Each structure stands twice: as C-alpha cells, then as structure tokens.
C-alpha cells in the first residue's frame, strides 16, 4: 500500500491522503478521473473494482465518495473523495469509461443529489421522473408535497437522454435517442411475472431477438437512506430487512457489523455462532428460491414447487427461533435478539441430511434435462472483464470466474474459522450461475455442519448503551449477501443519527449487466437470463 500512496502522490501531488478507517484520498474534481485511471491501470495492484459510489451532501459542497478495490484482493481498499461547491449546477467527471457499474450509480446520484456527470453517455435521472422538483437527498430539500403532487395522469415515457460531453476541452450539452425510429418496443414490466418485482425493461425487439434494453427503475423506491438520516441506529436495522428481503438476515448483519466496528462493541462468541449459522440458513433459503424461480422462468412449474418445499423447512426453523419467517429480526447491535431453541441443533441436522438428498434429486430432475441444458448452456455470456467492470458479485460473478466472495477475502463472523470452498466456474453462462447456487447450498450445509455441535455457552448479546452514538467519521462494512456483496457506509457526525447512510445493492449491479448479456439473445432467453441473475427489486429501489 505504501507504493500505492507514492503512486497517488506522483500522479496528483496536491492530493490529501488520510488514514481513516480506510485509506482516504481527497482530490479536486478535475483530477479524480486521472487518479482513478492511474489506480486502475497500474500494473502492480490494479484497483479495477468500483465497490461503492456514494453521493454526498457535505453541507457546503456536493461530492462523491468512491471505494475502489483490486479485483484480485478485495480486502485492499482505497476511498477517493471529490466534490464541488457549486450547488446550482454541480458538475463532476464521470468514471463510466473506467467502471461500467458507475453508469447507473451516477444516474442515481444525479436524481438524488442533482450532480451531473460529464461524459456519462446517458444522464437521465434514475429512480425519479425527469420532471421531479428538487433533489431529495440534499440536506436543503423542500419536502413540501405540493411541489411534487401525486399525478393521476398517464405520462408517456420519453426515450430521449440528455448528456454533457467534453469535446476538445469544451462542454457540449446534447440529447440522444435511446431507440431508433422504427424499433418495435415492448415494455417488459413494471407488472410482469418474470421481472421478479416491479422492474421495467423497455426492450426493442427484432422478431424474437432482443436488440436493446433500457432499464427504468424506482417504481417502489422508498428513500430508505434518506429516512434513516432521522432515525437511531437500532431503528434503521429494520430497514435492512426490507432491502433484499431474501437475504434479510445477512443485510442486517452488515449494518450491525458496521455499527459494532465503529463503536468497538465486542460481540459474544455464542452470538457469532448463531449469526453465522443463521446467515448460512438464510443463504440456502435464498438460493433455493432463486433455483425455483429460475426453473419457473424456464417454464418448469414443478421444479419451482420443489424448491419452495425445501425452503419451507428453513422458514420453519426461523419461525421457531424468532417468530419471523422471511424477515427474522434476529441480529441486533451487539449480538442477536433471540437465543436458539432447545431442538435447534436436532432440526438443523435433520435438515442437512434431508437437503443433501434433495440436492441429488434436483440434479436428477432438472440439472441434466436436455431442454434445460439447451436453455442455459452458452446463454447470457458474461466475461470476467465485464463482470469486474459491472461489479457483478455473488454466484453470478463467481460463475464468470471472478473470486469475489467477501467471506474469503474479508472474513467476518466465523468465516475464517470454518472450512469451505469458494465455488468458482469460468463459463460465465446461465448454467454456470445455476450450478453455482446449487453448489453453494452444499457449501452452506458444510459450514453449518462444522458449527452446529460447537456452539459455546454464554451471552447472546453484548451490553450496549441505551442510545448508541457513533464517533465522528466514515465507516464501511461489507458482507457476502445471497446475491453478492452487500455494503454499508455510514458517515457519522457524532450524533445518534447517521449523517449519511448508503447501502451497496448487489442486485443493482446484476440488473445493470442485463442489457449487455441479453443483447442479441432471444426474448425467451432474456427471461431465462433474468432468472439466472436472480435480482431482487426492493434491493435496487432502496
């Protein structure tokens, strides 16, 4: 990392380097692109993954925080910060040409903070309508409902994207058409059985072949990050469950870890055991549902029900532990809320045996079905370079050969004590993603097997103060949720509320790669690929 510091200083001598929780570099807005490019392209340790892109209203200035990691070692992290004091017409330079994942994130920042990015090819607001008045995440946002009245009129979707490009050192504002004149466009979503939620893909078709996809999102955006700015940390916990509801427990684990690290709370060992086991049960629950939905998207209804059947047993175990089934409210700051029940070990062990048997059944029933193979092998190819550029993590990222399991790279809870394999395949097609999920279920079973008999006695929750205040600073935590890397960023000003809270949504990266991998595939395969990517919409519409 010392070499990286030198590299930063030789590239941008006036950069301010601070050692906070992460190595933080602050530069002026015109130097950021250069610095990011140098970091990405240096041969020794290329920082080629954009993990976080966080819009910030720092009071005086509007800015962005970037968290970069090398794709080969996600535990090395650098935070880049930049900003502009022009609140009327804030302009920053886009890094979309370096990291594709920045594209939708920058559009999100534009919608919520009003910062426009020069050289981003499509600068429409993401999540919000183009005519929304004000920028909701700014601290001086006027929440008066009369400014943005509820419209009961149908609005046409405008397929024209404004953008600002830099041509020969001059800024040019221009507008581009998303689709061609004669394109046959159909709306897949927002109400569609195979979009797995309220997602809207505007798709132009040539016969059955998908030519272009334009993603619209935000139909169920709840402004969770903004709401959190007025809530205490224990209150915010409940929001994490409502992001990716299928990995509710893991999301919550992420936020708890972030607060625990910031306030230096020691989590009792028994709680760590329970957390790890519950996370893995949650992961299996989610992968089973993902498997079921993918088979359903390919038209196999029976397989869908089989997945639900096994999932039911996990949900029963959850219910017996803490009363919840989908959203289990188990993790709290400092530990867990409920202790395990008397027969917990027995139930889980029975489930392990049962599930191994059922995995064999899935294998016989679906994994080698000739039609299923024809619908998955070689379909929706995502190369490793694109995976990293789009920051597609989770089983999908590992299906393209990118080792991106946070449990291995930055072990948390008990993941450094247990033995498990990171499932990696290099094919990058739907089938690799499909098999990855099934294999990860097996790995989860293996992890639980090692822990279930050794749960130590003791407290399940550390003593915490009645009101939890975070010290001033910026805190990050990253966990491996079911769909990929889930991240939490908190900027605290020493209060009991966060000044800014941001969640990294793994599903957003998955969806942003859809236009790339579905291009020139058949319409049916678009649905099948969607199933293999397995995105959850509330995770995107935070």
């Amino acid at each position, binding site marked *: 990392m010392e070499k990286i510091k030198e590299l930063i200083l030789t590239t941008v001598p006036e950069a301010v380097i601070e050692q906070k929780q992460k190595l933080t570099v602050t530069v002026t807005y015109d130097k950021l692109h250069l610095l990011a490019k140098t970091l990405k392209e240096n041969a020794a340790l290329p920082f080629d993954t954009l993990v976080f892109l966080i819009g910030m209203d720092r009071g005086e200035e509007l800015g962005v925080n970037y968290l970069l990691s090398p794709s080969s070692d996600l535990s090395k992290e650098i935070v880049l910060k930049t900003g502009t004091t022009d609140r009327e017409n804030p302009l920053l330079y886009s890094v979309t040409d370096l990291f594709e994942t920045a594209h939708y994130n920058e559009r999100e920042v534009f919608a919520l903070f009003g910062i426009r990015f020069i050289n981003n090819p499509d600068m429409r607001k993401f999540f919000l309508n183009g005519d929304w008045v004000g920028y909701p995440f700014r601290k001086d946002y006027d929440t008066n409902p009369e400014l943005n009245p509820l419209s009961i009129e149908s609005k046409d979707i405008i397929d024209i994207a404004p953008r600002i490009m830099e041509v020969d050192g001059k800024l040019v504002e221009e507008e581009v058409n998303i689709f061609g004149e004669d394109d*046959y466009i159909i709306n897949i979503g927002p109400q569609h059985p195979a979009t797995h939620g309220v997602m809207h893909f505007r798709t132009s*078709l040539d016969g059955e072949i998908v030519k272009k996809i334009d993603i619209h999102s935000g139909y169920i955006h709840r402004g969770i990050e903004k709401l959190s700015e007025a809530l205490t940390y224990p209150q915010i916990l409940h929001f994490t469950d409502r992001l990716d509801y299928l990995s509710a427990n893991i999301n919550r684990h992420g936020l708890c870890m972030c607060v625990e690290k910031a306030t230096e709370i020691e989590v009792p060992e028994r709680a760590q055991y329970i957390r790890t086991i519950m996370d893995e049960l949650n992961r299996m629950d989610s992968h089973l549902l993902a498997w079921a939905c993918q088979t359903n998207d*390919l038209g196999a209804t029976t397989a869908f029900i089989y997945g639900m059947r096994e999932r039911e047993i996990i949900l029963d175990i959850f219910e017996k532990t803490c009363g919840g089934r989908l959203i289990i409210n188990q993790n709290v700051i400092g530990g867990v809320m409920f202790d395990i029940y008397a027969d917990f070990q027995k139930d889980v062990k029975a489930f392990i045996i049962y599930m191994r048997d059922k995995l064999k059944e899935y294998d016989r029933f679906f994994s080698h079905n000739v039609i299923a193979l024809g619908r998955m092998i070689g379909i929706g190819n995502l190369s490793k370079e694109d995976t990293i550029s789009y920051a597609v993590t989770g089983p999908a990222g590992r299906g393209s050969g990118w080792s991106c399991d946070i449990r291995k790279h930055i072990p948390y809870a008990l993941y450094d004590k247990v033995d498990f394999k990171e499932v990696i395949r290099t094919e990058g097609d739907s089938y690799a993603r499909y098999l990855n999920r099934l294999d990860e279920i097996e790995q989860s079973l293996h992890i639980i097997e090692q822990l279930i008999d050794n749960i130590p006695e003791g407290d399940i929750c550390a003593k915490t103060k009645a009101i939890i205040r975070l010290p001033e600073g910026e805190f990050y935590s990253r966990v491996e949720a079911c769909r990929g890397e889930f991240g939490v960023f908190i900027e605290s000003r020493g209060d009991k509320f966060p000044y800014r809270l941001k969640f990294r949504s793994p599903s957003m990266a998955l969806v942003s790669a859809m236009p790339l991998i579905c291009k020139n595939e058949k319409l049916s395969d678009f649905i099948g690929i969607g199933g293999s990517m397995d995105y959850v919409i509330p995770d995107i519409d935070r």
Partner: protein
Amino acid sequence: MILNYSQPLEITNLTSWLDTTLRSSMSEFWVLLIEFVLVGVVLLAAYAVIALILIYAERKITAFFQARYGPNRVGKWGLLQSVADMIKILLKEIIKINRSDRFLFFAAPVFMIVASMLTFGAIPFGKGLNAIDFNIGVLYVTAVSSLGIIGVLLAGWSSNNKYSMIGAMRSGAQFVSYELSAGFALMTIVVLAGTMQFSTMIEGQRYCWNLFNGHISSMIAFIIYLISGHAETNRGPFDLPEAESELTAGYHTEYSGLQFGFYYLAEYLNMFIIASIATTVFLGGYMPIQVHGWDAFNGIMAMIPTYVWFFGKTAVLIFLSLWVRWSFPRLRIDQLLNLEWKYLLPINLVNIVLMVILVLTGLTLTDLFPGLF
C-alpha cells in the same frame, strides 16, 4: 368369433332402440331431424363434461406431482371445483378492449371452439358411438383441427397488444410446423391400415394394434405423433404461445369471461382429441384386447363396454401428456422449429417410405404370423 356375447352395457342398444321406436311412429324426415338434434345436444354436453373432468383431473394429478393437495374445498375431494369455476367464468364480464378490431376479436374464440368441436364430432367413442363415420375420417380430422390456428392468429392480431401478437406469431409458426408431422405420422398408419375410415381401421386392429403391427415404423410414427400432437395443443414444454413467464398469457391475454373460457375449454379438449385420435389410430380405439384363440378371455374382455376401453386408453395417453407437461421446462422458439424441421420431419418422411416397404414386402406382424395376430 365375432362378438356375439350379449353386451348389456353398450350404448348402441339404447340408440338402436330409440331409432326403431321413433321410426315406428313418424316419417323418415322427422326421425332424422330429431336424431340430428339429439346427437348435437349430446355432443355439446359431452364436450363440456369431458372438459370439466379433464380440468379436475389435471389439477389433481398435477397437485400430486407437485407435493400439493389440489382442489379440496368445493365438494368431496374438490370434485365440484370445476363446476364452480365454470359458473364463475360464465358470470364474468366480457371486457371490451379499446382500439381492438371488435369483429375479429369476438370471432376469434368462436373459430377456436368450432374447430375443436368439429373434430370432436368425428371421434368414435365406442362401437356405433360416432356422429359420422366418414370414409376419409383421418383426412377430415386433420383438416378441421387445423382451423383452430385461425382463432389464435386472429386473437393475437385483433387484441392490439404486443404480447398477444408475439404469442400468436409463435403459435402460427408452431402449428404450421407440427401439423405437418402429425399429418405424416397418421399417413404412415393409413398406409399400414389401408383405409382412412376410423371404423374400418379399428376393426382391422382386433388382434393386433397398429402400434405393434408395423413394429419399428409404427413405433416411430406413434412417438412422433405424440410429440407433435402435444405441440399442437400448445402445452408445456411447447407452450410458447402462452408462455406465462414471458408473455403473461400470450394470445389470449386480453380475453375475459366466456371468451377466455372458450380458449380454456378448447385447450383441454384439444388435449383429449389428440389423445383419442392416437388411441383410435394406434391403440385399437374402442376395441377390447383380443387374442387369437383365447375365446373365454376374449369374451370377458368384450363384456367391458367399448366406450370404457376407449376412455381408458385415452386416459393413459392424457396422463402421459400431463407427465411430460409438468416435468419439462419450456423450449425456445428456434429450438422448437429445429426439432420439427431438422429432426421430426426428415425422420417422418423416411418412416413413410419404410412403412410402404414393410407393407409391400409383407413384413408386418399380421403378414409374418397370420395365425397369431
């Protein structure tokens, strides 16, 4: 040797009694008129009842495949569920779609139901239990059953909905392709049986079903017919026209109430029709299992009424179709067309030639073992 045992359960007894009674009291014209109306009413009723039974059976069987209970609330074991559903669908509002082609939109379901009903009329349900016994029965059935596609295409076109349109286009491509295979598979058996008339064909299968008579060639034709027949009914894994995870409901997305009911009925009845034609052509139709020389056995078999044989054999084929439907994922349109044009059709053409050779050189089972079959 002919079935000369008394068969008290045969419906033929009832129909011939009715016929003689009517003839004894009125003129030829009125007898025919009454009989036409009666046959029509009975067919319509049978059409609806069979559909209801099939819907119930499918839901129940599927439920057992899928570790569920299926309908179990209305009536004992949910037996009345289909009836309740039918009443519900009759009471539902027929929604008029703005900017749709009104006339075609309403005409489309009628095409669908008429085509399937015309086919339904020609099926021999039992000895003497067919509305009409054409001498070109196979040709007739193939011809009228292909009218149904007009209903699908019209529905997709007139709904003014892009999803419906894609569904209809897929359906068109699929139907035209698979009709070909189904037709050729039936032709193979026509070569073997030497007739297109259903009753003669069934009579010819008294001791040896066509499925076994033409051994290799018949087996191939049978499998091809099952695949392409299944594809013609638009059911999984060939349900692309209405692929619910892709096109919501495909060509009938915009239909509601009874119009949707027509499509729904026709779908189930088409499944039945395909199975019953396969039964008639390949599995000896309503003919009981008979073995040369086993008179006692033959007698007992013949005691079971012919319509039970017919429905029994058909039920087996329908179960097969359900089994396939609920096990396989859906094909993609190009895979579907590949299967037909690159595999089934060439195999089929060769198969017809093979059958001709078998028949001409006397290699069918009846020719090889005259005493046995």
